[in-house]
């Protein structure tokens, strides 16, 4: 009899929990996913150094360097998805600098910028936002030739 009571109570609890689960719907959460790389392009090694800025809007500015060859460039892009029905705002954390390494040298990216900057909002109903990241590549004088790359993290935090 006692066992039967317990079983009934558990069944009742599950029955209650079921509708509760349905009512809370999707739990609040956030996910970021990288879509494209931050690409600066191809440049002739400059005699006196130079800079290449790829803005988070995908635009490019050159200073002291000459592009050459298959010279594709673009900002890094990410997809940000906020789940649940709560606050769709999020805080963006990007590196302050990124070091690219190549076969015989390195280069630094600074002035890293995101769009949106600082905070973003994954507006309902889709709760999906696009986040892009750019920066300024510093090419040293007589930078050794080769392919340079790095990976860098971008973190998004839900605003409660």
């Amino acid at each position, binding site marked *: 009899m006692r066992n039967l*009571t317990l079983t009934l*109570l*558990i069944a009742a*609890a*599950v029955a209650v*929990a079921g509708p*509760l*689960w349905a009512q*809370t719907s999707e*739990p*609040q*959460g*956030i*996910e*970021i996913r*990288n879509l*494209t*790389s*931050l*690409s*600066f*392009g*191809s*440049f*002739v*090694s*400059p*005699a006196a150094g130079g800079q*290449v800025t790829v803005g988070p809007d995908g635009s490019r500015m050159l200073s002291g360097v*000459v592009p*050459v*060859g298959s010279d594709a460039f673009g900002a*890094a892009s*990410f997809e*940000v998805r906020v*789940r*649940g029905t709560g606050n769709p705002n999020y805080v963006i954390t990007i590196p302050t600098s*990124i070091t*690219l390494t190549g076969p015989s040298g390195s280069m630094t*990216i600074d002035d890293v910028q995101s769009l949106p900057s600082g905070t973003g909002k994954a507006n309902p109903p889709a709760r999906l936002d696009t986040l892009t990241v750019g*920066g300024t*590549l510093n*090419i040293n004088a*007589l*930078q*050794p*030739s080769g*392919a*340079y*790359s*790095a*990976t*860098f*993290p*971008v*973190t*998004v*935090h*839900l605003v*409660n």
Partner: protein
Amino acid sequence: MKNFKALVITAAAMAFVIAPAALAQSSSTDSATANATIIAAIQLSNAASLEFGDIVQDTVAGTVTVDTAGAATTSGLTHLGGESAAEFDVTGDSSKTFAVTLPSDGSVSLAGPGPAMGVNSFSSSCSSGCALTGGSASFTVGATLSVAANQTAGSYTGTFDVTVAYE
């Protein structure tokens, strides 16, 4: 005891409700690649000068053309040899090709004891799509020299600029 059971069951029910929320991420991180390519600078050096050779003074004007193979042809003048094309050496990235920019007409002349002689119609053995096999290449440059009637005898010299650039 019954209360305790109820408490346990309530706790179980609560856990059921709360657990999915605890699984949700309040932050998320993903990484992107950043990349750039550096190409060795292209460098040009002059290996041999453009020589029009020995030309005999004449009462009529004429021209001497040295082609990229270094051969001379004349119009209305006697030429005694000594001609050769200019030669340039290039180093750069073997995966790239380059183009050659030659002086424009009217921009180069040879100075000497008499009136300056114009050098025009520059030609190059490679003008565009020039390969850097193994990271180096060479090309030759010719041009046409205009000699005036009764050009003062003597040695005439000048310089001209040639530019190479990756394509």
